[in-house]
């Protein structure tokens, strides 16, 4: 029997160092244990050239399961991944897909409410319908940036335990040709950092850990473009 392939389209500009890569790689790893052969592509460099887009389309055509993983940018999907989706959608109107290909979306947002990612999930779902994929479900991860920050999910500690469990359930269902179950979506929707803890962490610890230059601390609220437009 032919080995099935799963393709991870990583839509984060941070590539392999991103939380999208952490979540997507974990899911691909679980599917590999179920017999899939995994492959991943960083989308951003590929959409810069016609050759890159053609390679992307060929990899997508060959896959039996496609996973889009990207951060939430301005309530939606990062522009390079939208560019890839536009290309794929137009191409698949001309060259119809030869097999049923389930599509899964993983959205990680910097906010603690998973509801903030609902629009991005809806856009992926609409893309699946327009581009001839079989929608297999979306998982929205809240405050993933604070809890995971690009580390392998297996090393992200207890805060990522629901994320791991949700992806375990998703992999089990997808390997049987089923859509992502509601329990996986519910587990994914539990914020990795609770809302009550998010504001103090986000407003103090996060930026203090990243801003090394103390002169920048005083300039954090500067308005460099005021009166300059």
């Amino acid at each position, binding site marked *: 029997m032919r080995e099935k392939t799963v393709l991870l389209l990583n839509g984060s500009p941070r590539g392999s160092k991103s939380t999208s890569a952490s979540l997507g790689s974990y899911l691909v790893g679980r599917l590999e244990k179920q017999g899939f052969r995994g492959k991943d592509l960083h989308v951003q460099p590929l959409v810069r050239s016609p050759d890159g887009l053609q390679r992307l389309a060929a990899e997508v055509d060959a896959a039996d399961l496609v996973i889009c993983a990207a951060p939430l940018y*301005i309530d*939606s*999907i990062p*522009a390079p991944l939208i560019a890839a989706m536009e290309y794929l959608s137009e191409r698949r109107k001309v060259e119809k897909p030869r097999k049923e290909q389930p599509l899964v979306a993983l959205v990680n947002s910097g906010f603690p409410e998973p509801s903030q990612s609902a629009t991005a999930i809806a856009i992926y779902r609409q893309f699946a319908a327009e581009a001839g994929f079989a929608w297999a479900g979306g998982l929205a991860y809240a405050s993933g940036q604070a809890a995971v920050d690009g580390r392998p999910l297996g090393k992200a500690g207890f805060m990522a335990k629901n994320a791991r469990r949700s992806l375990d359930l998703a992999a089990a269902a997808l390997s049987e040709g089923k859509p992502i179950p509601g329990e996986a979506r519910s587990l994914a929707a539990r914020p990795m950092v609770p809302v009550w803890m998010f504001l103090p962490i986000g*407003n103090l610890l996060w*930026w203090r850990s990243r801003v090394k230059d103390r002169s920048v601390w005083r300039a954090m609220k500067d308005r460099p473009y005021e009166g300059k437009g």
Partner: protein
Amino acid sequence: MKALLLDGSRAGDAASTQARELIEQELRGKGWEVSSLTLRDMEIAPCLGCFKCWTHTPGICVTDDAGTAVVKQFIASDLAVFLTPVTFGGYSSALKKALDRTLPVMLPFFRKFGGEVRHIQRYDNQPRIMALGVLPRPDPAAEQIFRTLVGRNAGNFGAPDRTFGVITGNMDAGGMKKEVRSLLVKAGVGP
């Protein structure tokens, strides 16, 4: 009053071209200063997701290209117009590449607002947002996603108001003019 029109349309899209010309005419006719940007022709690099506009050069993106000019004009505008083909219910990649680069208009700090955690705005004044989507034919599912997206954007940008409309490629000139005028009135541009 200043308006910034971000044109995220594809080349050769007649309905978008017509809509853009109508919006510009209506605004200028009412004394507005209009800056229109054809985003597909602009070299705007993707947001790197590095957060350096918060942690190294507050309020300034480390990529110095046309994306920086968009941010400056966005901040200085009273009205920001998003013109885009409705793309899977959302914005085109051309419009989105510009919007992704607006992260510096927000602070890294959060507050709870409207029942959700949101970023605090860096600047006191934010433009109103008017979004006009273009669809080849009516598509209620895509329109619903578009409406929700515009509403969410307005909330997260701290926009004082937002209006939303969709025109379809099969609309005649009269119908399109009516839709654009109605949208501009809702956006506070006057009857």
